[in-house]
């Protein structure tokens, strides 16, 4: 079931440099969403662009959901200014969700604006007491809002070394788990900028690890009626192919795709 619901903003804060967290009361979406899914947002009621803005759900439960986003343009600038009590037009939950983490040792890797769905998964894993490793990347310490706790398998990286380990998330991965040093059931879950996802995918390939990636494509609707959000899959294109075979829809068939399945992360 997909809901269109007026979410009531109950908090909206800058949690790191240019990164905001908003908590909504949104009972229907809260009770039906799973980690990895997203909502599609109308930044304001007099929004004059035609597209909503998709944002991963960072947490759900107790009638609430939260999102974590970077202020990068017009829509997210409006969002960063939402007042407490404001009603926001949300559509969700949308898309597929993280799977296969119960029977594996999950390494979950987030970076840039791809932290929300990873944090959501982290929370679920903690709650379900599933042992896992969390790796988060940022450009510098100001963009992190989380402690670096190697003892708890929580590793932060920064490009400039100002917090956690200097380098990117794959540098961390390689240092903790050198190529070949994985247990059989390790599975990677990742979300982040295309370049990072490509590197994570390469790392998984080299280690022959199962790897799921949450991709961000431009979306007009978020629920399957515009066919704009395509991701190219390694599907046979000769013969009779359906229109969602080679070009999958990120909003219905994704946003999470298996790394093996797709051509590129862009």
């Amino acid at each position: 079931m997909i809901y269109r619901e007026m979410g009531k903003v109950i908090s909206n804060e800058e949690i790191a440099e240019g990164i905001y967290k908003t908590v909504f009361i949104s009972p229907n979406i809260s009770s039906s969403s799973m980690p990895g899914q997203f909502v599609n947002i109308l930044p304001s009621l007099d929004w004059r662009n035609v597209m909503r803005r998709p944002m991963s759900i960072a947490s759900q439960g107790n009638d609430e959901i939260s999102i974590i986003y970077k202020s990068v343009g017009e829509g997210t600038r409006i969002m960063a200014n939402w007042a407490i009590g404001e009603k926001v037009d949300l559509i969700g939950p949308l898309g597929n969700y993280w799977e296969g983490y119960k029977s594996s040792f999950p390494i979950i890797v987030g970076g840039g604006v791809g932290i929300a769905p990873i944090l959501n998964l982290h929370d679920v894993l903690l709650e379900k007491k599933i042992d896992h490793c969390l790796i988060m990347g940022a450009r510098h310490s100001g963009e992190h809002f989380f402690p670096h706790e190697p003892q708890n398998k929580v590793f932060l990286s920064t490009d400039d070394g100002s917090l956690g380990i200097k380098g990117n998330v794959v540098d961390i991965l390689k240092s903790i788990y050198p190529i070949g040093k994985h247990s059989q059931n390790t599975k990677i879950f990742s979300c982040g900028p295309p370049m990072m996802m490509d590197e994570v995918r390469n790392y998984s390939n080299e280690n022959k690890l199962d790897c799921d990636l949450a991709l961000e494509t431009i979306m007009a609707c978020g629920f399957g009626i515009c066919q704009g959000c395509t991701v190219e899959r390694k599907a046979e294109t000769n013969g009779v192919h359906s229109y969602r075979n080679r070009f999958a829809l990120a909003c219905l068939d994704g946003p999470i795709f298996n790394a093996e399945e797709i051509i590129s992360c862009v």
Partner: protein
Amino acid sequence: MRVKLKDIEFSSPILTASGTYGYGHEVRDMADVNQWGGIITKSVTRHPREGNPPPRIAETRSGMINSIGLANLGVEKYCNEIIPSLNELQTKVIINIAGSAMKDYLETMEMLESKNGKHVGYEINISCPNVKEGGIEFGVNCEMTEQLTIEMRKRTDKLLIMKLSPNVTRIEDIAQAAESGGADAVSAINTVVGMAIDVKTRRPKLNTAFGGLSGPAIKPIAIANVHKVFKAVNIPIIGIGGIATAKDVVEFLLAGATMVQIGTMNYQNPNLGIQLKGELSEYYSQNEIEKTEDLIGKVEYHSN
């Protein structure tokens, strides 16, 4: 609010635009699809089409450009997989057909006609490049449009609507060609050719470089085209382009449209057509308008 095209009565003059509402069932959680005056389905072609590679859409000021590339199942699967679910809808269904050669269009229609579909008519998308004629769109050429209409007309007694492209010097000539070919109505407009470039990557924002512009940005262009066509033909016109409010619907009716379609704004609000039906009915009673016909083409020119 009721309005008739030939002998078919629609419960409201507000339809979905092809390619912007899937096959009606995708939005069932958020909208009671049967409250629309009718559903016009995503273009179907003779053979399956995977569509264009990503990126396929990009936002522009008050609009968007797209180059979906007519991704669809092809008419065979359509008959088996889509028509049964369309038959379950309680609202009127119009099937949109696209093609790149006369033969494709005709075979597609023949196959659809051979099924016991409950659909009331066809909308023919003539804005696709015709491979035989070296890539010229049917929709930019009067003879091709008339010939295609004549052949389609021979094959169906259902509603036949030719969908016009705005990317021509004189849309009124194409509309007349559709009329003399035997179309029951024309719809206008399809998207306007547009392009956008990402200055960072220097790549076109669409994989195909060129795409179709839609949304509120094009409403003035759509109104102008509808009004030009209104002055040129006697068959009904279905107005399309940038509709977002009940006032927009009235504007199209005044310009000469008998019905309208909503496209891009469905993405923002999948319930829009149903909401506007309510607002339109309020508008009618507030302004003492008894029937939609009292608005159609009733724009009053300035006197100078």
